[in-house]
């Protein structure tokens, strides 16, 4: 699915003042691309994701998917939240099959799909655990499985690995790349970690502090799958950092 922001602005009205989160953003993402958004905290990266997810509407401009304006949420564009946002009253398995139940997928097929997904994210042993029993990394894995269950054309990820330790992050980077290379969906990945962005993305958009504008665009042509120790990564990360605000 192609995604586009055309002349998009987003103002938030607060009592007594108005905050411009995004200022005339133009952004074009091709189907199947892995795009990263980097920028300082509060620059509107999350707002961009919410616009693409259909959870938010722009004050100005157009938010489009495949050339048509986005009018609301759709399981074709799934957002993975910063803290996973798993449902605590459901088990891991029930969380993952949530979207499948909405689609009224019959139980046998559902069970099979969920089993495959849990295996893909290495959580099959925890199918019947409760969410509060999981660590941060495990929760993000389940969130990923829940999102992939509905086979979305677009995966929107909001700093999903931000709260995790370096080791867990490295593992998840590897898993995410593997999953994406197999599924081929469009990914929009928000992070403030520049090296992570260089590791994962085909293109990187650098955003400014609020009101958010696009400061720079970088192409990352390194071969895949990539690892943090690969030679090109440090140099490219330095380049990207050079275009960011201090």
């Amino acid at each position, binding site marked *: 699915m192609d995604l586009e922001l055309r002349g998009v602005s987003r103002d938030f009205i607060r009592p007594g003042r108005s905050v411009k989160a995004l200022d005339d953003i133009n952004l074009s993402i091709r189907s199947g691309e892995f795009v990263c958004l980097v920028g300082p905290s509060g620059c509107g990266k999350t707002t961009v994701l919410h616009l693409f997810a259909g*959870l938010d509407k722009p004050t100005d401009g157009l938010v489009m998917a495949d050339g048509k304006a986005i009018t609301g949420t759709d399981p074709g564009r*799934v957002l993975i*939240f910063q803290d996973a946002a798993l449902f605590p009253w459901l088990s891991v398995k029930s969380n993952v099959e949530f979207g499948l139940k909405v*689609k009224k997928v019959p139980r046998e097929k559902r069970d099979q799909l969920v089993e495959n997904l849990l295996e893909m994210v290495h959580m099959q042993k925890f199918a019947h655990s409760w*969410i509060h029993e999981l660590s941060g990394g495990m929760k993000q894995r389940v969130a990923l499985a829940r999102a992939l269950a509905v086979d979305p054309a677009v995966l929107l990820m909001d700093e999903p690995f931000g709260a995790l330790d370096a080791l867990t992050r490295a593992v998840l980077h590897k898993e995410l790349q593997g999953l994406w290379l197999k599924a081929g969906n469009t990914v929009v990945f928000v992070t403030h970690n520049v090296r992570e962005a260089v590791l994962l993305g085909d293109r990187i958009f650098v955003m400014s502090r609020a009101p958010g504008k696009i400061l720079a665009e970088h192409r990352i042509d390194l071969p895949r799958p990539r690892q943090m120790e690969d030679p090109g990564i440090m140099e490219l990360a330095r380049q990207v950092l050079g275009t960011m605000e201090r």
Partner: protein
Amino acid sequence: MQRTLFLSGLIGLWFLLGTLKIWPSYIFPTLSGVVASVVRGIERGTLPIAVWGSIRRLLIGYSIALVSGIITGFLMAHVKLLKNTFGLLVLGFQTLPSICWLPLAILWFGLSEKAILFVVVMGAFLSIAQAAEDGIKNTPAVYLQAARNLGSSGARLYRTVILPSAMPTLATGMKLGWSFAWRSLMAGELIYSIPGLGYMLMMGRELNDMNQVVAVILVIIFLGLTTDKLVFSLLERSVRSRWGTLAR
């Protein structure tokens, strides 16, 4: 282990004080006297009738309060007009001890069981309605967003997200409502003579039978503990096992 020792010690002390006959029998109930009273009550059938009378009233009253409370809470959460009008009443009446409804109830329903039931319902209704409304209104936005994102909406969203999310708050309200209902029932039965534990308690006083008074008190305590263990502890534990410490 500690509990058993403590209880045995307490019972032993009770027995000892009884045999020493320090106080007259209408002030200090002896252990044997109380046990005899309980046995007598069971043999004569007066105790089972009283227990059943009270429990029946409690169950009927609480069920009515539960259903109407949840429905009211739901309506208050969604209909602004209702929240601003009826909701104000709910807030106000929460400060009224539910037993104060008895005079009103008697004027409305006469000296009948209906009056006591009304008091029991009022005891539980307000806590449950408030808890239902709170639980529903305070559904974390992020759960709604995640669910909508995955394609859920309307009645399904309600059934699979909003209601389960409200469960911990509602469970607390249900437990609170139960204890209010229990208290209002006992108060009501003490004031108005109707077959039940409260009545048996008052009878004990009128007959100067301290043993009966204490016997009924122990039965009331026993019933309270049993229902708490059987119903509400189970409910709380099931909520806690799912939610962990996230339960609000």
